[in-house]
């Protein structure tokens, strides 16, 4: 198989397989979670329309929290940068948009290359700081297991290879493209198998917390 043939395969059938595996896995994981069910709360709610407090928390937990709750600024800032950074890179980089258009037919306008380039650098920097903090800080080191480092790596690789690809570094373009796409496929397949599931489940966890507190009249 030539490089070109391999590239065609990973872009086409390879990608389809990865996406199907990812979707299948995520659906299974969400079902195994949701089928556990949640008992109806029989106490009298202060406000019976409590679902709205769930949605409120889904939104508000993305905002900087109250001054009294010491969120470690470093965790908070780097977390913010790399999550927003990843989103911008995935959704607003023109070649990504074109790829998604080919796949789904949907299209939107992208951001200029220089902006994506800067975002990518900043994202990588934030992720490196996160990693350093995970190793260096007592609490994070204590909590971290192999899977936490694995998840970091599997998220970092697509960003790094994408950056090297754009700047024509390290490997010839087509080879680098293959590496980049495969790294993305690894990320996709890992989603249902690792903590990357939080990409989907965070909406549920925030909603459950917000709703439960909201019906008691507490906005969390």
């Amino acid at each position, binding site marked *: 198989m030539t490089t070109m043939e391999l590239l065609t395969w990973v872009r086409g059938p390879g990608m389809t397989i990865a996406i199907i595996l990812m979707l299948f896995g995520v659906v299974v994981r969400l079902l195994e979670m949701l089928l*556990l069910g949640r008992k109806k709360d029989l106490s009298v709610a202060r406000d019976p329309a409590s679902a709205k407090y769930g949605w409120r928390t889904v939104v508000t937990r993305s905002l900087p929290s109250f001054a*009294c709750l010491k969120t470690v600024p470093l965790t908070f800032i780097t977390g913010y940068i790399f999550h927003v950074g990843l989103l911008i890179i995935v959704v607003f980089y023109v070649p990504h948009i074109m790829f998604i258009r080919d796949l789904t037919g949907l299209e939107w306008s992208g951001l200029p290359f220089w902006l994506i380039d800067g975002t990518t650098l900043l994202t990588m920097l934030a992720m490196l700081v996160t990693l350093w903090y995970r190793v260096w800080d007592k*609490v994070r080191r204590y909590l971290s297991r192999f899977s936490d480092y694995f998840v970091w790596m599997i998220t970092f690789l697509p960003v790094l290879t994408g950056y090297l690809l754009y700047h024509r570094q390290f490997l010839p373009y087509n080879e680098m493209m293959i590496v980049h796409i495969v790294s993305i496929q690894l990320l996709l397949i890992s989603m249902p198998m690792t903590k990357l599931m939080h990409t989907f*489940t965070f909406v549920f*966890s925030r909603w*459950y917390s917000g709703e439960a507190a909201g019906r008691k*009249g507490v906005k969390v």
Partner: protein
Amino acid sequence: MSTSIQRGIAAFKQQIDAPIASFFNSCVHCGMCAGACLFYEATNDPKYTPINKLEPMRRVWKQEYTFWGRLAKTLGISKPINDAELNEWQELLYDSCTLCGRCSLVCPVGIDLVYMIRKAREGMVASGHAPKGLKESTSRAMTIGSPMGVTLSTFKKQVQHAEDESGIKIPFDKQGADYLLLMSSAEIMEFPEFIGAMAKIFKQADVSWTFSSEAFEATNSGNQIGSSDLAAELVQRVVDAAEKLQVKNVISPECGHSYTAIRWDGPNLIGRAYKFNVIHVLELLDQLRQEGKIKLEGLDKERLTFHDPCQIVRRGGITQEPRNLINSVSSNFVEMPCSGISNWCCGGGGGVSANPDADELRLKAFAIKKQQLDSAGAKKLVTSCSNCRNMLEDGIEEYEMDIEVIGLTELIADHLKE
């Protein structure tokens, strides 16, 4: 595998629902919950990070309710939890957690940690890993009717004192009263002034109320130790008494954990809605004040501050009422930093005060509360929970601080217009 550990695993399994699964799925080990917990803040020991307290429960969830976990368990790659681990976690799930719920406010993915810690205690009870002190107080609650061993005749003696002192006849078992008042053990034994204070307030407001000789105790040890069966039995005693007397409302005493048990957990424990309303005493007092049914006079000029009991504010939604009440009797009320929903715990909730194993750590953690109190610079500290009050007095003595602790209901009664 011992039968006790099997019972423990079964109990953990029974508690795990969709919210808990979503919480474990979402945790990214960012460690932010550590800084919200008084026990971590006071010790800087990472084992006190709230999510770490749930490690046994997380393992059960993973091995029993996830595809990959089940696979790993079948292949023998991951081992089930064992007695030695649960023994180690006893300190983490009981001694170093007051169920204060501060951690649940901070998690970026919205994990309600305290919801899980309360449930994890069910697995600890079932496997025989609850602390001795809590087991004893729970057993007193089940056999005598009160965790501090208060009997009906002791209670009646305290009521008699209050009657003698106030000159007001206190009603018992009055059929069809509007309100049935519950008490906590600590109020009966250590702060009996509460009884007289309520009698005075209700007399002025012309409220139809009663005590019940069949259920006067609101403290729910079953909830604190983590046994739904026992907790349900304790709630059922109150429900039976209230429904027999056909009262319209049951008043939760100041005690925060009593409020959580009777107001929010109770119907879920007994599996049905009540035929009466539950109202917290502060809600009722503020309502009576607003309706003009209680008339207050005199304003305290001394600088005073207020300690929000966790279960009343953060887990109960009562924030404004105590402030309205205090402001109507004080001209010099100052807030502590972080008061209200993110207030720091007194250190003794969630069964910690009934667990002597926890004493040393609890007093160490009080350093956080001390900092908060010091910045308010008040001479008087008002609170509205007898357990908080005990714990605050204990900490204040230990740290040789100069601040007087008073109960809010008594403060209000002292300012009633004669």
